[in-house]
């Protein structure tokens, strides 16, 4: 029997805690240890929209098979939060484990016979071992890492290594932390049979990979894209993007001689100002961006329409969170797809990029600036809280030093000097993209940027025909965009007649689900949309399948709506699979939704 229960490098542990107690560092220590042991791992942080005292959870999944999506079944619960103890206890899978702080007794009512409950007097241990209050609170968390180290058979040298890096310039902190680790580990070894059947074992599946969050990756992309102006107004979950950009720039963008900055970050008074700053900088020839989330998009929408019509480059990162309105700022969703695609009043449409992981956050950030300048229009990078704020394991990013930005059609002073006349909004090349000029370069390049009616020469107009001419070119330009944006990722299974279309952070769960379904005999093709407008490949995939499950994380099937409007697909063939409770998508959900349908199919 024992053997049967063995689960090596395939478990989910969840830490229930109160925010503000410093548990995040303990949790990342735990996750990083598994990662350094070569085991594919994921960490999901479910934190409240407040600063201290409310429940917070951290979920770590280790998967030798390399599944990086969240899993909904908890093998080991570390129940550090009295408020949520009952609920946490209930969440453990039968046969699973629960660890709690036995410094204080639990009511007998809060027991379960189908799981193993392990009590560790964490508070007691730390209060005896440490002097000051701060340390006692902090080390309690480090101590449960120690307990798990013993139970899961974690590599202590790896843990020590991590601590030394973290507290490089504070040796005494390294010692304190190791002491706490040892406290927990010793207690576990002494009182429980270590290791558990559910445990870790060193392997070699994380080489060449990193653990990084999407906001940091996107910020890095902005640095490598050569962005120099960043404007923002703080909003969860996008804030860490600008924090990271600032940190990187302070390290890699200071002038050697003067120490002055080769970048300019403006903390704007609100999102309306942030996007105005970005448009002003873009007009003036700097690469500029703003990170925000749903409410910011709504506030920016007047200016976004201006950018579309006046044809100014801008890069907007929308790190989506659960809406509508303020919604759940610390929960994830893909609910701004339509809001961004058609942002602003009047006839407008916008280029969207959909990264699925931090690696694509990096790559699409770079691509976004090229597209914004090539197309002279605002470009959205639609990430979400799950990608943006959680640590994902992904291959190390690569960079080709010969790569140069595409600044698009900008007339040089020399070119202008030689031209008889400059017409800002004329379609000289037939691709719907007109040539632009930059202020201060040359008198001949002067024109008036305006959101009011203008003709192809850039002059103000109220003339029906002149106005239409520009509007029609804008429509042509958008068609051009379809061939410039990143194409979809397609994964075909031999003989599949049905398929899944999905987007962004759904990817890991979808790919895991595809495996499970295949094992059940449900074979599906898979296409992941990576940009809007959709290019030919998307249409082909839709044409090639009678039934297509559109998996996305919002209530109103927004990706499905966009496909319905912007391709020739018959929408009755698009079956919505919608997950929108604010937690990251997991494979089971998809399997249930799709398998269920096929079984019914058989039944009928």
């Amino acid at each position, binding site marked *: 029997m024992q053997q049967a229960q063995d689960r090596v490098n395939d478990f989910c542990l969840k830490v229930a805690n109160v925010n503000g107690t410093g548990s995040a560092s303990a949790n990342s220590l735990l996750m990083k240890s598994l990662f350094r042991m070569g085991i594919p791992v994921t960490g999901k942080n479910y934190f409240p929209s407040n600063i201290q005292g409310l429940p917070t959870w951290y979920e770590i999944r280790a998967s030798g098979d390399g599944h990086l999506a969240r899993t909904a079944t908890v093998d080991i619960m570390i129940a550090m939060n009295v408020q949520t103890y009952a609920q946490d206890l209930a969440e453990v899978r039968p046969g699973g484990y629960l660890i709690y702080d036995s410094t204080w007794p639990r009511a007998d009512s809060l027991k379960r016979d189908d799981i193993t409950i392990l009590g560790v007097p964490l508070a007691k241990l730390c209060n005896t071992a440490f002097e000051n209050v701060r340390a006692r609170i902090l080390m309690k968390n480090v101590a449960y890492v120690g307990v798990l180290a013993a139970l899961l058979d974690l590599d202590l040298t790896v843990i020590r290594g991590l601590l030394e890096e973290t507290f490089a310039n504070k040796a005494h902190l390294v010692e304190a932390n190791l002491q706490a680790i040892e406290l927990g580990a010793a207690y576990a070894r002494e009182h429980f049979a270590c290791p558990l059947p559910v445990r870790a074992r060193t392997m070699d599946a994380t080489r060449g990979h990193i653990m990084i969050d999407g906001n940091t990756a996107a910020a890095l992309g902005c640095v490598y894209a050569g962005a120099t102006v960043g404007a923002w107004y703080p909003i969860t979950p996008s804030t860490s993007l600008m924090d990271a950009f600032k940190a990187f720039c302070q390290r890699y963008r200071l002038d050697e001689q003067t120490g002055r900055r*080769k970048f300019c970050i403006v903390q704007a008074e609100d999102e309306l100002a*942030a996007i105005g*700053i970005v448009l002003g900088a873009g*007009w003036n020839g*700097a690469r500029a961006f703003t990170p925000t989330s749903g409410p910011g998009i709504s506030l920016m929408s007047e200016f976004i329409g201006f950018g579309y019509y006046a044809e100014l480059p801008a890069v907007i990162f929308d790190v989506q969170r659960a809406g509508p309105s303020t919604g759940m700022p610390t929960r994830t969703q893909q609910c701004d797809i339509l809001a961004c695609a058609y942002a602003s009043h009047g006839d407008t449409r916008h280029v969207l990029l959909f990264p699925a992981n931090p690696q694509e956050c990096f790559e699409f950030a770079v691509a976004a600036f090229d597209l914004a300048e090539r197309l002279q229009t605002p470009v959205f990078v639609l990430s979400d809280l799950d990608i943006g704020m959680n640590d994902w394991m992904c291959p190390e990013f690569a960079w080709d030093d010969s790569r140069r930005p595409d600044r698009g059609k900008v007339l040089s002073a020399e070119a202008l000097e030689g031209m008889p006349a400059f017409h800002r909004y004329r379609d000289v090349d037939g691709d719907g993209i007109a040539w632009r000029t930059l202020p*201060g370069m040359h008198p001949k390049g002067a024109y008036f940027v305006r959101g009011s009616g203008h003709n192809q020469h850039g002059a103000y107009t109220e003339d029906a025909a002149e106005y239409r001419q520009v509007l029609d070119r804008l429509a042509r330009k958008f068609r051009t965009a379809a061939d410039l944006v990143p194409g979809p990722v397609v994964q075909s299974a031999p003989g599949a007649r049905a398929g899944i279309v999905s987007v962004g952070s759904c990817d890991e769960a979808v790919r895991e689900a595809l495996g499970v379904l295949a094992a059940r005999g449900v074979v599906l093709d898979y296409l992941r949309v990576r940009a809007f407008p959709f290019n030919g490949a998307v249409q082909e995939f839709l044409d090639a399948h009678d039934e297509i499950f559109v998996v996305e994380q919002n209530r109103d099937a927004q990706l499905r709506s966009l496909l319905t409007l912007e391709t020739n697909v018959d929408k009755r063939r698009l079956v919505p699979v919608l997950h929108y409770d604010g937690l990251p998508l997991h494979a089971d959900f998809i399997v249930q939704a799709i398998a269920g349908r096929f079984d019914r199919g058989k039944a009928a």
Partner: protein
Amino acid sequence: MSFIAKPKVSHPGLPRNALGLSRRDYEGSMSTLCAGCGHDSITAALVQACFELAIPPHRFAKLSGIGCSSKTPAYFMGTAHGFNSVHGRMPSVATGANAANRDLYYIGISGDGDSLSIGLGQFAHAMRRNLNMLYVIENNGVYGLTKGQFSASADIGTKAKKGEINDQPPIDPVLVGLSMGATFVARSFSGDKAQLVPLVKAGLKHRGFALLDVLSPCVTFNDHEDSTKSYAFTRQFYHPAVHTDFVPPAGRIVADYESGGATRVTLHDGSQIVLRKVSGDYEPTSRKDAFTFIQTKLKQREYVTGLLYIDEASRDFHDISGTIEQPLNELPYETLSPGAKKLAEILRRYR
């Protein structure tokens, strides 16, 4: 290399500046404002000042929001780029433009509606950042372009007549500027070219945010219902369009008076305002004294004009941001990308 606009062919007699350009070279397209609009007088002063400063027109960037006032950037320096943004949001665009290229001269033109209603927040925060620009408010107390609703600033015409200054206290851009930390605060009158031109020049030369509030009467909509000369008065409520459809022919109002002195100006609808020029010995270096003086005079329905406050010591937006001297939009890509080797170094932290 730098390019200079070819002087427009204009008869040789015309005076030329150091660049060999005539005033014509600083003009823009034909104004489409009402005959006699104060805004056009301000445009003329801007042309004169920039001409006298002998800065190449294309080294200016003109920005504005929405309104009759915000249209005026089209009427001066046709060879300078212009940015007609959305209503009330010009300051943010100017901030971004300035961040990208600190070497251009930035002129923002706004209205009292554009800056004190919808745009108050951006206006205030641009001052707070001490953004290096000349910010002109063409202040007529009304929303001209939408046909004459009262704006948040005192309605010059009506206020003087009714004197209900305390009913809904007008927002005075000069007082706002003083309390928001503007480092150059001035006020003038559209008809006072002799005072306007030097103020514009001083504002452009000031390293930081230069606020220039210019009282600029609206020919058409200072013609309120309660004015006995009003066109509307002759009609009973009947057809909305009629009221504002007719614009009586009007001449520009000019004011020419000594520093230290005061003058009473009669507006198109017959109402009057008093302008008081600060005297030569006025010390424009104390925020609170300026505030006190202006407040006191306002209570007496007098608009103090001239350079009211200046602080040349304060660091501007770029100093505070610690930006490099070279304009960011001119930095070669090579100096911006850390390159492949550094990337590997960075990513090591994420192992």
